[in-house]
């Protein structure tokens, strides 16, 4: 560290401040003005240093002091991250509220990890052991998980001493022969990816319990997905459902430029939620980062990096992490705003020319990896994109689609029909399906993929038939094609539509999804046979088993109900002579 040096402000224009008299490195953090507002160096021109300040700069004058901290923006990593609610630069919001009241005022520093909390540390290495950078040296119970204490990446040596007991994050729990102390906390610069040993193929699905996603457009652990959609397509509800139900161990939720009231919903519903697998509070495995749209733009820009650095830290312990960035468009918007204040030459639609590379750098930090602690961990990133005017050709969406492998196309037409989740089955895609096929075959059902393909095909056929129906009406179609329309309607209304608010319907295990779709498929096959025996379509469609199949998803005893309905279906079709 260069140590702290001081200089003076020469110009203030909104969040961009120019200073003289310090010689920091790019992206070092500086404290600006008498209020000591936090800022980051974003440009060096001659003797002048251009600083992007994370807080409102009203009242700051030229001539006030600027302090160079000599270090880039970093986060504190260690026990205490889970259950925390941070702003974009890792200041805990509950503590800010205690310190300064209901409104976020300026110039308040608060460490990311509480300094006074004692954690129970149990070493996993013995005295005399040879440890490498990034290795696990001990364990601490934290929230719902076991926090693995990692050695900082640049530290290695022989353990001289290490002890069990209650410690704060700063207190040394041990020492290496070379004199380096081991503590539970380390820091990491957010803009720099944490290193790993090797990237692995993402061949395990991230199970979300959302039927349309798991069955038709699966995401792999370590994969990347984008959910675009104009405002009001249910993007926020979908991403909240994923945080609640996906089988990643750790959830990092970055509310980047989110609405205050919606963030409140996240902040109030999360602590009440129970983890369906353990019965413990969901917050015990969650880190929330909340930077609402009226909080400083520069902190919004940083919030995404803060989030992914925390995700990488848990990945390095060997956990599966899912990171939700809602929304990356707001993040890009922040980049655009800062870039325009810097009077940079704008690229497409006023976005900076480096938009594409920033996006790919960000998504590039996810993946399933072999870590330096000898474990395997993953980060799956789900980025929400909110294209302006619902126009998918705008630069943020386009650059994102070039990178991500899964596209869950939220559709406002479907929203108007109250089809939720409003994910368009024709325009969405997942490039992971072929890689994940084996897993589904081994873990759910042999013919999972066949059922999946059948459903996709039926839906595709429907859309072709719909065009004809638009012209001539459905009565003009042959019975068999009308049956396809009916079956596709069943797939849409029974299977694809899923209510986030219904206690049973909100989560659907893979086995149930498979059985549900198989039952619809069976209905379709029987119905086809019935029609070939010249049973009128109306009669087939009005069989009670069809309606029962639709209502099934809201029943608490759905899994037993499924068997009953399928049995009834066989009987009813037998009654038609099938």
């Amino acid at each position, binding site marked *: 560290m260069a140590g702290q040096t001081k200089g003076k402000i020469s110009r203030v224009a909104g969040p961009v401040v120019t200073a003289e008299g310090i010689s920091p490195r790019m992206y070092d953090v500086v404290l600006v003005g008498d209020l000591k507002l936090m800022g980051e160096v974003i440009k060096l021109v001659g003797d002048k240093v251009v600083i992007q300040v994370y807080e409102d700069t009203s009242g700051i004058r030229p001539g006030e002091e600027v302090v160079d901290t000599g270090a880039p923006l970093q986060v504190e990593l260690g026990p205490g991250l889970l259950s925390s609610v941070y702003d974009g630069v890792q200041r805990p919001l509950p503590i800010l509220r205690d310190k300064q009241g209901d409104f976020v005022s300026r110039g308040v520093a608060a460490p990311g990890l509480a300094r006074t909390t004692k954690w129970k540390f149990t070493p996993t290495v013995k005295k005399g052991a040879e440890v490498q950078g990034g290795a696990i040296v001990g364990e601490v119970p934290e929230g719902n998980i076991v926090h693995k204490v990692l050695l900082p990446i640049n530290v290695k040596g022989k353990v001289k001493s290490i002890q069990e007991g209650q410690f704060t994050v700063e207190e040394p729990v041990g020492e290496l022969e070379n004199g380096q102390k081991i503590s539970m906390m380390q820091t990491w610069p957010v803009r720099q990816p944490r290193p790993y040993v090797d990237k692995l193929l993402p061949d395990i699905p991230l199970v979300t319990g959302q039927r349309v996603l798991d069955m038709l457009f699966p995401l792999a652990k370590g994969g990347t997905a984008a959910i675009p959609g104009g405002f009001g397509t249910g993007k926020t509800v979908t991403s909240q459902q994923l945080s609640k139900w996906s089988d990643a161990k750790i959830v990092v939720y970055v509310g980047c430029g989110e609405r205050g009231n919606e963030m409140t919903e996240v902040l109030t519903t999360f602590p009440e939620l129970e983890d369906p697998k353990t019965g413990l509070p969901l917050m015990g495995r969650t880190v929330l980062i909340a930077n609402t749209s*009226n909080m400083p733009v520069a902190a919004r820009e940083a919030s995404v990096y803060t989030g992914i650095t925390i995700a990488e830290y848990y990945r390095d312990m060997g956990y599966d992490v899912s990171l939700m960035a809602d929304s990356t468009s707001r993040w890009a918007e922040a980049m655009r705003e800062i870039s325009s204040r810097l009077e940079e030459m704008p690229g497409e639609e006023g976005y900076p020319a480096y938009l594409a590379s920033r996006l790919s750098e960000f998504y590039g930090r996810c993946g399933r990896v072999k870590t330096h602690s000898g474990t395997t961990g993953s980060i799956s990133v789900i980025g929400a994109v909110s294209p302006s*005017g619902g126009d998918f050709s705008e630069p943020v969406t386009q650059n994102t689609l070039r990178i991500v492998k899964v596209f869950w196309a939220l559709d406002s037409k479907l929203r108007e029909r109250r089809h939720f989740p409003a994910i368009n089955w024709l325009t969405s895609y997942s490039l992971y399906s072929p890689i994940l096929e084996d897993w589904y075959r081994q873990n759910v059902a042999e013919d999972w993929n066949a059922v999946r393909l059948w459903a996709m095909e039926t839906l595709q056929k429907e859309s072709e038939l719909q065009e004809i129906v638009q012209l001539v009406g459905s009565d003009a179609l042959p019975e068999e094609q009308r049956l396809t329309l009916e079956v596709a309607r069943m797939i849409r209304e029974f299977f694809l539509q899923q209510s986030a608010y219904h206690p049973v319907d909100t989560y659907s295990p893979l086995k149930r999804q498979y059985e549900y779709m198989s039952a619809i498929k069976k209905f379709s096959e029987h119905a086809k046979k019935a029609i070939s025996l010249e049973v009128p379509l109306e009669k087939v469609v009005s069989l009670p088993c069809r309606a029962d199949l639709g209502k099934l998803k809201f029943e608490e005893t759905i899994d037993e109900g499924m068997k009953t309905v399928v049995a009834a279906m066989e009987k009813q079709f037998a009654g038609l002579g099938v």
Partner: protein
Amino acid sequence: MAKEYHTISQIAGPLVFVEKTEPVGYGELVMISLPDGSTKRGQVLDTSDEIVVIQVFEGTGGIDKASGVKFLGETVKMPVSKDMLGRILSGSGEPLDKGPPIIPEKRLEIIGAAINPWARDNPQEFIQTGVSSIDGMNTLVRGQKLPIFSGSGLPHNDIALQIARQAKVLGEKEEFAVVFGAMGITSEEAQYFMKDFERTGALKRAVVFLNLADDPAIERLLTPRLALTTAEYLAFDLNTHVLVIWTDITNYCEALRQIGAAREEVPARRGYPGYMYTDLASMYERAGRIKGKKGSITQFPILSMPGDDITHPIPDLTGYITEGQIVASRELHRKGIFPPVAVERSLSRLMGQGIGPGRTREDHRAVSDQLYAAYAEGRDLRGLVAIVGKEALSERDRKFLDFADSFEDRFVRQDKDEDRTIEQTLDLGWELLSSLPVDSLTKIDRKIVEKYHPSMKKK
């Protein structure tokens, strides 16, 4: 006393450039004295050792290079007091109603700090507006910001007034205080609002800020902030529930663009500044509730979409910040339906939290989903009818087609003074739904259908 400078080097549009000053704070308030003895106010936009850029609120007309510039050493503040209720103020906060000056109890920064997300309370108290298309389909809750997206010539003012008049929280006697901020509207429109406030006695509980079409555009950047600062004071210091109505957002954004162009900033979409999103957010986000505080701020901004284009940057960015939107429909207006709420394009994002058992009624969500779906289906069929004629439709389809018509005619349409309770709204919904085959009500739980369906209830 602050020093007066006579070092103006350049005046361009609403901007004044002053040289060789002592250090001046960013955002500081500025007083400019003109040769004719009058004064104008402004704010520092850019400050450096060499030059200070000032944006003048009342326009730069009459300022010359010899004018005196005084920096007041503080940012723009709003004097607030509880006596403000019932007052009419100008767009920059001066009394217009010939009443006494406001004796401030507090002077507040008009650039409100962001509410700490952790301090926010979940908005979930249902506001009954008495308008079926809003209460039933796009429910408003306390602390929400729900704009009306309208177009020129549509009766958005009437919708806003009806809501201001009828809005109440069930089981509470207390009325809303209204803070009304007008930005660049014509004096006729302003009169219309004032008359209605007087007629209904709402003026007693209102604070009115008027920046009219012929007032300086730059002042429009101030008006909403003054209104919101006042609203925050009423809500969080005096524990009042406040309804903020401001009109027209489009005029505000035009002013923002004007200032951006004068500063020679790099423009983003359609010439609007790149920071318009953040700027709008800094105002819309001043709605909400705070844990442990009794008051609340609910915003009802009116926005006229240029050319009815919902993808225009102003409605587009607004939609990303506000919790939904009420869209006014020209089609319904032409059919003579008031309020012309385009239900299928409107949305309230906080609806889910404000409805259901204990808040409205257990069947609310299901009824509204079903009405949406059936109406959407009926509307689609209209397109088909145009091609193949009504005769070609199946029995089922014809029912949906008729449903869409009666939905518009009976559910959406209501009188300007008709105040429907939520029960009336939902019962009306059931009545309309009962014209459809029971097995097409797929969005509703079987038990709920059995309990509320008019023909099943009787059995």
